[in-house]
């Protein structure tokens, strides 16, 4: 049963991702992405990570995508034009992608899950997911957390700099 759910969600995520890049209308792209984020949230739920699933919906689907939509509409983008130079060789590229999938499938046949850490599903359930996540994030993973904050800072600086209107 779980496998079927996973299969549906994963397949949908891939398909939707392709639609995001493939659709010509930017507004459609954004909407496909919204759908995709919801499916990703579904994947989180499947992993008993209800807090992450909720965050995914609230932050990505709720906040970020709305912003995207605003930008796309403000910019008044028209339909993308199709240039042969950019779309050629899809057969070769597609075959490569299929090849990678096939090889991964064959290669991962012998996949055995390694040592389990202290946070088994039961342990997470006992502590409740949100609490467990918070505890780990702010103790064990405090350093990556702080680095991530710097990462966001750089992203903001970069975005502001690159989009500043006035060139001095």
């Amino acid at each position, binding site marked *: 049963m779980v496998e079927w759910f996973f299969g549906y969600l994963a397949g949908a995520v891939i398909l939707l991702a392709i639609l995001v890049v493939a659709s010509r209308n930017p507004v459609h792209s954004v909407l496909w992405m919204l759908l995709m984020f919801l499916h990703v949230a579904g994947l989180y739920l499947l992993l008993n990570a209800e807090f992450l699933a909720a965050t995914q919906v609230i932050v990505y689907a709720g906040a970020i995508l709305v912003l995207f939509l605003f930008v796309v509409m403000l910019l008044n983008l028209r339909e993308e034009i199709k240039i042969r130079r950019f779309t050629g060789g899809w057969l070769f590229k597609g075959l490569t992608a299929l090849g990678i999938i096939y090889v991964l499938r064959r290669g991962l046949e012998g996949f055995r899950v390694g040592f389990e850490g202290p946070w088994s599903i039961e342990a997470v359930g006992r502590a409740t997911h949100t609490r467990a996540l918070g505890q780990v994030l702010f103790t064990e993973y405090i350093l990556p957390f702080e680095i991530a904050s710097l990462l966001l800072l750089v992203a903001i600086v*970069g975005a502001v700099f690159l989009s500043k209107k006035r060139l001095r």
Partner: protein
Amino acid sequence: MNEINVSMLAPLLPEVIMASAGILVLLVELVARRKETAGLLSIAAVAVAAYYVPHSFGKSFGGMFVSDGYSAFFKFIFFINLILTVLLSMRYLVIEKSNHGEYYSLVVFSTLGMMLMASAGDLIVLYLGLELMALSSYVLAGFIRHDARSSEAAVKYFLLGAFSSALLLYGITLVYGLTGTTDVSLIGAAVVEKGLSTPLFLSVVFLMAAFGFKTALAPFHMWAPDVYEGAPTSVTAFMSVGPKAAAFAAFGRVFLTGFGSLSTDWTGILVVLSILTMAVGNILAIQQDNIKRMLAYSSVAHAGYAVLGIIVGGAEGLAAMMNYLFIYGFMNLGAFAVVIMLRSEGVRGEALEDYKGLAKTHPFAAAVMLVFMFSLTGIPPTAGFIGKFYLFKAVVGAGYAWLAVVTVIFSAISAYFYLRVVMYMYMLEPEGEAVTLSLSPSLGLALLITTLVVILIGVYPSPLLSFARLAAG
């Protein structure tokens, strides 16, 4: 480990200094009238951080962060890279009409990312450091906003970089699934215990591809020529040394500590990649008539040499690689400094043609360029020879005599395009108007440092050698 206290930051003191400096530079940029102040501030911060590097050895955050000789050596490469880049940039940014203080802040943050990569004892920290480094470089690559080439470089670098990040994450995920940990030394223990399996090896391949992207190993090097050519020259100089060295630092630690027990299996692949890289880099460099693009391919080729250190493995191989990267940093930055010197208002100075008869019009610039070209070729008594010599020695010592021969052959091919620059400068007559040099005190200082170090290491290499040997453990 639930206790968090300030003392845990002790080994991270240089990183904390750099992070503070990055933010401080951003603030100073707002008030300072001369943007060079921001640059000087970043150099000062590096000086302080460098002072604390040898005083901050130790592990912290449960082994996620490791400050040891190995990371210290690489951090010095990053510091030198930052200092020289800032010196190169001050006048160059004015010429390019992009003199903004954010530049220096981004350089500092990027260097911080590299430092975290070199010290990463955990794949998560490694990934975040890499992203910090990369994100800053994406912005830097597109720093000249009014230049389409610069923007194009930034977009290409960003998209392909995201692709490589995905590969890295996929590899990390597989490793985590197989071993239950992201700690590099614990991974090493788990790998020893579980032995070789196809999924594990696939994860190794993913990581190899990701590191191959950052170090520009063929066939993951495709971005390098376009990005290096399009990016501002000072940024190209920065990117061709720092991020490459940082990626090698992580590459070495992950592969030799984490997957060291499988080295007999993955060295074969690396040998193929190395030869392919040397071939692609050197052969395509011959084709170029733009000196930035030529140096981009040369940088690809040098990655092919440096990776030999990981193939050899052990302290010997790592020391040879570190040595090589250190030397490469100086000679490459020096060569880019000359390229920048030829860039002046309205003149790009990137075409090989611009170097015609440089020895007649600007004998000093030509002589300095000659030193760097000789060093990049590996002609004694320049530092480049020392780097190659010890690399070859390590390769031969590890029983790969034939690989050393292949490397020497490609090295000989590389002489063709490096010495062609020399030929243009010394044997051809200047054409048309003589290029004007835009020499500033800071650029002059950078040139002086790089030239002196390249020659000094060439004639007196033992301090560097023993430092690298000590740092490699």
